[in-house]
């Protein structure tokens, strides 16, 4: 239990740190939302000044941070200047879309990487394994952005895939299966780009971790008891290789999330990515901070999940912690 508590403490510490950094950087950056407003001759300077005071932009940084923290603790993430509405609901809609993309991509990537990696480790050094290694090596050197752009080009050329957005214009008129299909069609390209961006990394690690375990004497012993190949691979070897893979799982959440923000921008998926970019360009202070904070929260959540998994998977950590 102490182990988990410690991890939780880390998480809180990280959240505070990130929010502080985000706050400092965004406020220290030159210019703010009202500077742009000032260029608009239709708005009276008095209005702007009033707004500035209302949003406390004149107060010193530590006080603003303190106010912001206390309002966050009350469930209020601040106010979007550009949308003229509270940040939280705005963020939430976007975050949901981002999560949809990331989680699906994650499941898919691991769903492919595990069996393929295990299979590859089992045939270590043979031709199919070597071809696979070559393929992953090639995929690794292509940057995510290039991958996403490439898929965009494919989408435009083939005309079969929608090139942006999450649903078609006539989405509301569709029946449920149609809706699902439409959503699926829109998701296909961004997801593929995402999966391909992490798959090589996952494959390599799964393969390496399994290859090491497959030579372990306890597997030879289990084989000597007539345990079937399938059980041997999935029930014996995989759990034994789980520790590094679970850490990798935590890491892959981060990569996928950052990859997802990028892919969203390129494929105009209505997630956090384009939203944040817009907010940064418009200097929409609280949206930026909120977005950064939310992404960090997802990351931490993912890693916490990984820690929980590790705790569950390795009895040695459990007993160490209970002493």
């Amino acid at each position, binding site marked *: 239990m102490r182990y988990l508590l410690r991890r939780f403490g880390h998480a809180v510490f990280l959240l505070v740190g990130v929010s502080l950094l985000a706050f400092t950087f965004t406020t220290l950056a030159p210019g703010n939302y009202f500077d742009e407003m000032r260029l608009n001759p239709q708005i009276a300077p008095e209005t702007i000044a009033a707004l500035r005071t209302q949003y406390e932009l004149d107060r010193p940084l530590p006080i603003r941070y303190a106010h912001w923290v206390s309002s966050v603790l009350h469930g209020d993430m601040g106010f979007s200047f550009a949308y003229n509405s509270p940040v939280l609901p705005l963020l939430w809609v976007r975050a949901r879309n981002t999560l949809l993309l990331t989680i699906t991509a994650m499941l898919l990537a691991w769903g492919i990487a595990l069996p393929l990696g295990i299979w590859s480790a089992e045939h270590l050094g043979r031709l199919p394994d070597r071809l696979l290694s070559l393929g992953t090596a090639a995929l690794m050197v292509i940057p995510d952005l290039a991958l996403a752009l490439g898929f965009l080009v494919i989408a435009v050329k083939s005309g079969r895939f929608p090139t942006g957005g999450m649903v078609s214009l006539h989405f509301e008129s569709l029946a449920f299966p149609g809706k699902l299909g439409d959503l699926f069609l829109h998701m296909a390209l961004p997801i593929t780009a995402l999966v391909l961006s992490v798959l090589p990394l996952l494959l390599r690690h799964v393969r390496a971790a399994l290859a090491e375990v497959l*030579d372990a*004497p306890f597997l030879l012993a289990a084989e000597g008891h007539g345990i079937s190949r399938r059980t041997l691979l999935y029930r014996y070897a995989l759990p034994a290789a789980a520790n590094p893979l679970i850490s990798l799982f935590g890491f892959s959440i981060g990569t996928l999330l950052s990859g997802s923000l990028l892919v969203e921008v390129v494929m105009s998926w209505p997630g956090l990515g384009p939203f944040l970019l817009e907010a940064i360009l418009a200097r929409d202070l609280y949206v930026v901070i909120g977005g950064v904070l939310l992404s960090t929260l997802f990351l931490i959540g993912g890693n916490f999940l990984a820690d929980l998994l590790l705790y569950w998977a390795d009895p040695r950590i*459990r*007993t160490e912690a*209970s*002493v």
Partner: protein
Amino acid sequence: MKVSDNDKDMQPLVRVENLMKSYANRKITGQCEEVRAVDGVSFTIFPGATLAVVGESGSGKSTLALCLACLEKPTSGNIQFEGADISKLAEKERRTIRRKIQLIFQDPASSFNPRWSVLEIVAEPLALQGSLSRDEIRLRALALLEQVGLSPEMERRLPAELSGGQRQRLAIARALALEPSVLILDEALSALDCSTQAQIANLLVDLQSARDMTYLFISHDLAMAAHLADEIAVMNHGRIVEQGPPDKILKQPQTEITRELLAAVPRMTFARPEAQ
């Protein structure tokens, strides 16, 4: 209850008092079940002496060894080494003690880094010391391997490429590398044939007389324990039930447990072969 050469006024090197160690096994239902592995053990060992610990499987011998080697924290009781209590030290201080009290694990196979070669495994503790040059380390390591009967050809093998007994001898060589003042041998000879056992036992005796080393010899082999030890302690269910000089334990056992152990020792039912 003490193990000494004969000096009455000598300070004991190790003094264990009322040592207890229990493990909490958490059940699925959430409740805790306590396993008391060591349950109030006291003894002293004088420098240059050997205490043998024998006893039934699961009686707490290895747990005792782990506590003594600062690898487990005792639940209660204290362990004095060179006059200072080492049972409640912080991790950093424990590390320096571990150098002086070396433990040869029972079943040491899983205590090696599987990617290191035989030579690297023995050289690592020497290199950590930091006072030797590369060549000196290599020579020392090879000499240690030679002492335990591992041929120099094996220096580049991985631990997985050795036989069980060779791995055990590798563990012995690694523990000897740091020239500890106390060496705890947890079933260190059990995977060796008679001849190799004799060779290592002779080495241990030599080292003891040359360097005044102190041994805690945990074994199921009563004959070997009797040969090496100044005193034998018999453990049962986490306690020492009987302790005394080997002759007394072997010839006049006081407890039923010791008598059972002795009676169960397999003996050659045939006449021993006469040397020609």
